[in-house]
């Protein structure tokens, strides 16, 4: 396709020639990079699976399946993460659209606020929810009087997780929407589409890979979230422990094989996410480049 011929990669052979340093320099740098990667990433990841499976496959499965608290933690994580992701998809789409398409007072403030959860420590975020929904907070008292338990219950886990993962979808979509530009949306309107028809038939199909990419990143963070969830959960085994919390608890109880078993499931989920991410990354790059290919062809 035209887009691919336009986006030919750099001439690696030439670059290599230009960068032909002494072999000692090259080997040292390569060795340092590989050593760091091994020490910090490969060894720990392999170790997780080794430790989990060391007592035997039977014990590994028993650790995961027969412990009701562990089962509940897995269940809870698989419930909380998707709901948090769904909330952030809706919010992220709306925020990204407003930021990319309109110029209004407070636009910069909104953009900055979206990044806030990245810069604030998750523990602080958790604490904010404790103060808001706890026994001292006005909102907490009102909710308790009306029979709603938020803190130390799944709703708080959801809020904390959603807060920490706010930036992912919006951050991913703002540049995609900006690259695509408003013209196709306007074309849809001028052809008689309603706002909803424009969104479902034109806007969303154009940004779908960006949305999926955002969802994957958001989901990875949501399942792994520890700090904020730790503060608001209350650590009630079988009720408010998510997988990361369960890992920590088992580890504190010196049940190392079980802790590693749960950790291995989290790691596996992370690895799957990583593979999906690479696949989707290729697709998003493809759509964005075929777009820029089009406009370049037209310019």
């Amino acid at each position, binding site marked *: 396709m035209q887009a691919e011929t336009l986006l030919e990669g750099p001439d690696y052979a030439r670059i290599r020639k230009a960068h032909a340093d002494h072999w000692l320099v090259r080997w040292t740098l390569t060795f340092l990079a590989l050593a760091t990667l091994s020490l910090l990433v490969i060894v720990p990841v392999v170790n997780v699976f080794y430790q989990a499976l060391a007592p035997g496959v039977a014990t590994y499965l028993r650790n995961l399946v027969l412990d009701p608290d562990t089962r509940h933690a897995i269940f809870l994580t698989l419930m909380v993460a998707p709901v948090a992701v769904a909330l952030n998809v809706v919010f992220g789409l709306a925020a990204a659209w407003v930021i990319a398409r309109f110029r209004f007072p407070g636009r910069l403030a909104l953009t900055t606020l979206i990044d806030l959860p990245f810069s604030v420590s998750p523990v602080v975020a958790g604490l904010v929810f404790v103060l808001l929904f706890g026994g001292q907070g006005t909102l907490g008292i009102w909710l308790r009087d009306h029979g709603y338990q938020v803190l130390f219950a799944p709703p708080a886990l959801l809020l904390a997780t959603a807060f920490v993962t706010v930036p992912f979808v919006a951050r991913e979509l703002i540049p995609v929407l900006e690259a695509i530009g408003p013209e196709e949306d*306007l*074309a849809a*309107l*001028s*052809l*008689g589409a*309603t706002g909803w028809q424009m969104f479902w*038939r034109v806007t969303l199909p154009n940004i779908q890979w960006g949305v999926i990419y955002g969802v994957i990143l958001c989901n990875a963070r949501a399942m792994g979230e520890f700090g904020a969830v730790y503060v608001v959960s209350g650590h009630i085994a079988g009720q408010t422990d998510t997988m990361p919390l369960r890992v920590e608890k088992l580890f504190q109880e010196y049940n190392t094989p079980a802790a590693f078993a749960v950790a291995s499931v989290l790691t596996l989920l992370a690895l799957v996410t990583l593979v999906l991410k690479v696949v989707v990354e290729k697709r998003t790059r493809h759509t964005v480049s*075929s777009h820029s290919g*089009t406009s370049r062809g037209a310019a």
Partner: protein
Amino acid sequence: MSISIKNVTKRFGRFLALDNVTLEVPEGSLIALLGPSGCGKTTLLRIIAGLEYPDGGTVLSHADDVTNRSARDRNVGFVFQHYALFRHLNVFENVAFALRVRGWKDDEVTKRVDELLALVRLDGLGERFPAQLSGGQRQRVALARALAAQPRVLLLDEPFGALDAKVRQELRRWLRRLHDDLHVTSIFVTHDQEEAFEVADRVVVMNHGRVEQIGTPQEIFDHPANPFVMDFLGNVNVFHGRIHDGKAFLGEAEVSYPESADLPSSPAQVYVRPHELDIATEAEGTASLQARIVHINPLGSYVRVQLQLASNEAEVNVDITPHRYAELELKKGDLVFVAPRRIRVFVEPGTQVS
């Protein structure tokens, strides 16, 4: 459907994009909005389409006030400068879009889209995606898409701007023929005066958010309303001189200009197009200026001669026929005489004396 624009004003922040613009577009006509970039022509087009709203003034479609109506309710076809084709839909679905959102039945959609693809000579390309088409093909898809729901008005934003010269020539003539067949009221924006003059029934010349002149191509070419229009229509020689007693004085030359007989003596700008000057090897009475040939540029159907006036070293361009050129045996460096055949005089405030 006729369009009336009355006293439309539009600002972007401090920038005044449209300054009290009034314009009538008769039913079935093909109008060009012509002007340099930033003159407000695209803003005006978008206001007519409902993609932009004016700060003041009204837009009437036939007799309806549509000033505050959305693009969706106006039923206009809009062809975007870079086409804005839906990249995730194939050609067929792009053209079908306006019909789908109106809830047409599948077989009716197929019939209408096939009809349109034949009209824009893209039969058989329905399955292609926009990225697989050439610029000219994309342009025609955009046109078919805009025409699908039988709009009352067709608006085109620099429709040929992104195409190479040869394709542009072809499409221009084709658009003109298409308009003659369909008779849908059409307005297009361009910065290319040749394009405007070739395609449009009437041309609206704009500058700095204002309409400078409206007229047929012939009217505008023959009677430019002011120096801006004269300048914008291309190559022109400007002499600074005076008018006095029905004559224009350009340096040592005096040219009869009876139209100015009633005016008081005043400084004036004298505009002469290159083809309205002649070159002679002998002085013709008092009507010619001495000049030296700087450069000779044979351009096929005519020869452009660049000269420098002997009096004040100002540069003058003269177009002569190849025949005349051969007759005179001109060479670079020759000292010759330049005589204006026809002049236009604008006295200082900028209005033509006529």
